[in-house]
């Protein structure tokens, strides 16, 4: 096995400086460590070191019952727990061939999209903060707070929701919750204008994002990017459209695409996704059918032996669950998460090469990684 530690040259050689960005660094969104080889301020090479937050969720799940795993999925991408919940529950439902009631499907769409907005708000705030626009950060968190309030009212938790059950949802909507959601959508649309005023037309923001970390569609596909980073490169790939799950096949929405594949396009794609999410929430709210929220689920969840892979579109990208059941025990034989952040982060060394340190920070922000999911 080759040594991971790069050869540390003399501190001030006339050409290169090796510097550790992280694991304690304000812009690495957790405990990411990037070993940068610098020529002046220019990044010659980068090595991403992860695993500081590895909790062994996959291993742990092999000794937890099927229902208990839902709350482990909360802790994967802890800023969008609801989508992880949806992904896991749908995978088990696929394995067990459980029919989920339509109302539950609609509710899952609503919660997923609210969660997407919340996650994108966190991305927007930290991304802007990383490039020095600190007001946007607080504005974004102000609106995220509204979503957290909605979730709190729905399931009692603000971050790790445990908001899905295999076969449906734990509870129906609280009274007048739907009105609040629509009210939130109205507020959010106005606030989006505010963010765009602060950033989209801002010359400094354009200079900081345009042409930074350019990656074309083919290379983005090859590097395994998914979600907004892939769509920013102009590849039309959205699990919600390609392999519809929950009630997305009944929703009407566009998949925003970028052109240049730079940081700005990834930004624009996510800003558009805010609007699309709002559109989906409105449709789902309008079309939500009455009915049960939990399908016919056996008392004892014990799926048949077999393997299943199911992917959903989490705010970060394609979140896949690969689950193997041996049909005998009470827990999965193998539980594998295909974390979008992990695969997106893989492209970071390629993206930062030749850019400056400040761009490294902007690029980590534009990939929108959550280390809880990267390290699992």
């Amino acid at each position, binding site marked *: 096995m080759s040594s991971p530690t790069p050869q540390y040259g*003399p*501190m001030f050689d*006339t*050409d290169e400086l090796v510097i550790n960005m992280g694991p304690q660094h304000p812009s690495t969104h957790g405990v990411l460590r990037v070993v940068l080889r610098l020529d002046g301020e220019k990044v010659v090479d980068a090595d991403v070191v992860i695993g500081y937050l590895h909790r062994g969720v996959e291993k742990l799940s092999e000794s937890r019952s099927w229902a208990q795993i839902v709350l482990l999925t909360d802790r994967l991408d802890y800023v969008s727990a609801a989508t992880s919940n949806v992904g896991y529950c749908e995978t088990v439902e696929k394995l067990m061939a459980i029919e989920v009631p339509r109302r539950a499907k609609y509710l899952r769409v609503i919660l997923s999209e609210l969660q997407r907005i919340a996650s994108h708000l966190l991305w927007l705030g930290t991304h802007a903060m990383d490039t020095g626009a600190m007001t946007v950060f607080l504005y974004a968190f102000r609106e995220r707070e509204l979503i957290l309030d909605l979730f709190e009212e729905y399931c009692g938790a603000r971050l790790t929701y445990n908001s899905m059950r295999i076969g449906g949802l734990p509870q129906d909507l609280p009274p007048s919750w739907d009105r609040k959601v629509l009210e939130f959508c109205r507020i959010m649309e106005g606030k989006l204008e505010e963010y765009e005023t602060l950033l989209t037309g801002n010359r400094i923001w354009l200079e900081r994002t345009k042409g930074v970390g350019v990656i074309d569609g083919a290379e983005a596909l090859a590097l395994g990017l998914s979600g907004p980073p892939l769509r920013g490169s102009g590849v039309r790939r959205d699990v919600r459209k390609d392999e519809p799950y929950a009630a997305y096949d009944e929703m009407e929405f566009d998949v925003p695409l970028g052109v240049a594949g730079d940081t700005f396009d990834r930004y624009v794609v996510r800003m558009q996704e805010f609007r699309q999410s709002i559109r989906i929430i409105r449709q789902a709210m309008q079309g939500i059918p009455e009915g049960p929220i939990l399908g016919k689920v056996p008392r004892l969840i014990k799926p048949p032996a077999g393997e299943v892979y199911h992917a959903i579109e989490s705010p970060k990208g394609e979140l896949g669950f690969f689950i193997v059941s041996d049909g005998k025990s009470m827990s999965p034989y193998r539980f594998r998460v295909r974390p979008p952040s992990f695969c997106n982060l893989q492209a970071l060394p390629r993206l930062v090469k030749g850019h400056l340190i400040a761009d490294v920070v902007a690029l980590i922000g534009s990939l929108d990684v959550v280390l809880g999911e990267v390290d699992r």
Partner: protein
Amino acid sequence: MAEAIAFYVLAACILGFAVLVVTAKNPVHSVVFLVLDFLCVAALYVTLGAEFVAAIQVLVYAGGIVVLYLFVVMLVNVKRPPEAFRAGGRHAMLGLALAGAVLVEAAAIAVWSRLSPAAPASAAQSLPVSGNTEQVGWLLYTSYLVPFEVASMLLLVAMVGAIVLARKES
């Protein structure tokens, strides 16, 4: 009285810092002492009524040239331990002896000049402007225009030369 106190204090500082510049083990310390030394020299110029030169001394010397030194020291310093002051070497003895000889010679001249003061030089030039800065400026742009332009050319050449020399050959 005040002038004397100022002179002696400043002179002590100038010489003290100069000795420290020369003897400091760490070149960065040398640079720091050099800055302090130059600031004291600037203060000395102020006591002599040469405010413009004092300002230039601080602006160009302390604020510019020495920063350059500091950069270079930081660029080349870290790799090798700073070289110690080697007073014992043959070289050093020779150097100190030479410096001593110059000191004696200069002191002799000074004492001699003290004993037979030169005739007061030509009386104050009458310039059409008053104030130190204005007068220096007047001289620079009238009598010394050509040297001034030559100096600016020299600086330009030095700038280009420094860039060419320091640039990495790629």
